């Protein structure tokens, strides 16, 4: 599938503002962005629910509508409420018959983790169960591409975990999966590739590791021990400085040079160098204009502290 210069405006809001994106078969891709970043609009364009005002959206070499009609796409849309007065089995069975090559209903329910709910009415299930039923509806047609718009919004931790187990099992069968989320950890843990969207534009595209690096490499922190912070922003490599209590946290593009400069100032006390967390990366990427003052959240345990910079 591909987006080429896609633009969609609602009134004065450019919800999707010149997006270029291609997905390869078999990939699991996360569309990551804040609320209102344009994720759902991008997905509506992809599914043919909206027409782009400018640019072209192609799916499997045709228009989105052609691909949907041909049964190549399955989708779980955002804020769908349960369909009243049907059982899980009836609902999934009905959707199966609209597709040319569905998988057996029992298998879809099993994959989505709702096999034991087949005879229950959809509108009497818990939120997590309903969400997994909607996942079964998305995958029953055995579509080559499955699109999940914020699949875990409003789920509790346990339900969210169960959902991702199902999703990864489905992706392993070789299907292309595109999901949107505003949870960084979800994108990092479940996708091969993360596409960050902000104000209708793609601001980064790569693996979680690449995003971390692209966002300004490492975080160097040390105790100030009463020393001032003047001049820290001028040290080599430093992009931003933040002081928490008596500790300075420098985001740097070249941690080696920064650390050497700190040593020359005799400022090394309780020095720590870690890779910027994905949270830091996300904040840096989605608010470029005020990155220097952006409050960074506490770094989560980084998988590696490699300092290779790589253009994404």
């Amino acid at each position, binding site marked *: 599938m591909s987006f080429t210069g896609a633009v969609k405006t609602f009134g004065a809001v450019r919800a999707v503002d010149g997006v270029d994106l291609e997905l390869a078969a078999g990939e699991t891709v996360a569309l990551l962005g804040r609320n209102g970043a344009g994720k759902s609009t991008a997905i509506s364009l992809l599914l043919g629910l909206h027409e782009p005002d400018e640019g072209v959206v192609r799916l499997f070499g045709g228009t989105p509508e052609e691909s949907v009609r041909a049964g190549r796409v399955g989708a779980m849309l955002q804020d*769908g*409420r349960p*369909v009243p007065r*049907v059982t899980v089995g009836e609902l999934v069975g*009905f959707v199966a018959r609209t597709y040319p090559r569905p998988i057996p209903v029992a298998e879809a329910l099993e994959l989505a983790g709702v096999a034991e709910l087949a005879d229950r009415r959809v509108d009497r299930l818990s939120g997590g169960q309903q969400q997994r039923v909607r996942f079964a509806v998305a995958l029953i047609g055995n579509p080559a591409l499955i699109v999940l718009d914020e699949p875990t919004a409003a789920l509790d931790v346990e339900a969210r975990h169960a959902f991702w187990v199902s999703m990864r099992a489905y992706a392993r069968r070789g299907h292309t999966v595109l999901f949107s989320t505003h949870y960084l950890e979800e994108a990092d843990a479940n996708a091969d590739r993360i596409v960050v969207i902000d104000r209708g534009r793609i601001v980064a595209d790569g693996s979680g590791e690449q995003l971390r690096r692209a966002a300004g490499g490492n975080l160097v922190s040390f105790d100030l021990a009463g020393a001032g912070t003047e001049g820290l922003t001028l040290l080599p490599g430093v992009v931003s400085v933040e002081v928490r209590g008596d500790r300075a946290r420098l985001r740097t593009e070249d941690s080696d040079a920064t650390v050497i400069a700190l040593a020359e100032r005799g400022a090394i006390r309780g020095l720590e160098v870690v890779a910027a967390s994905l949270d830091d990366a996300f904040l840096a990427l989605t608010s470029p204009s005020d990155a220097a003052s952006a409050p960074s959240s506490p770094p989560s345990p980084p998988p590696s502290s490699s300092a290779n910079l790589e253009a994404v």
Partner: protein
Amino acid sequence: MLGYLRLEVRRTLRDTGFVIGGVVMPVAMYLLFTNLGGGDDDSWKTASMVGMAAYGAMGSALNTGGGVAEDKANGWLRQLRVTPMTPRQVVTGRALTGAVTVLPAILAVLAAGGVVNGVRLDAWKWAAIALLLWLGSIPFTLLGLGNGYRLTAQTTGVANLGCNLVMAVVGGLWFPLSLFPEWLRSVSPYMPTNRFAQLGTAVADGHAPTLGALLVLTFWLLAFGSYAVTSYRMTARTV
């Protein structure tokens, strides 16, 4: 599309509101209106049977639109747009659902007439009345679909109820026209409900529906049909 029809008919029949409003109410009102006051008027029992069957059919037909509005609100119509079903199949399936779900009301009231009130007609008349009431309900299904596609779930409920009551009373489905003041009696023949019931009463009296009835019903069929089409075009691509 047959699968869609089956699913929607099932969903409608499981709707308690539909069963009470569309089947139980017309039957209860029929039995009430024909047995209160010790009236033992056979022609009124037959005429009211047709009127109440028509009233029940209209309520069920309008209810189809309520279902559309509900499904627009809960996202089911949108979900259908990302299945291989075409929009045309969806709207046709809905209209057919309406055609099927008017049957319980018609059959229940006719059964109450025959079994409880002892209305006696030739077999072909029963069949013809049922068939004509069934076909005559199509304009009301279109009106319901028009409301359902155009309005929100809440306003569709209010609009359907309003259409239902006004057309039922003014069309003479509840009370005979002879009880109406002169000016109202002159309006009634232009109501689709009045002519709708006339399809059945004409057969019960042993003659074919009048040309006037067919003309008035055709007019409303076209009017409600265009209303449904424009409503559908307005919203079908934005649900």
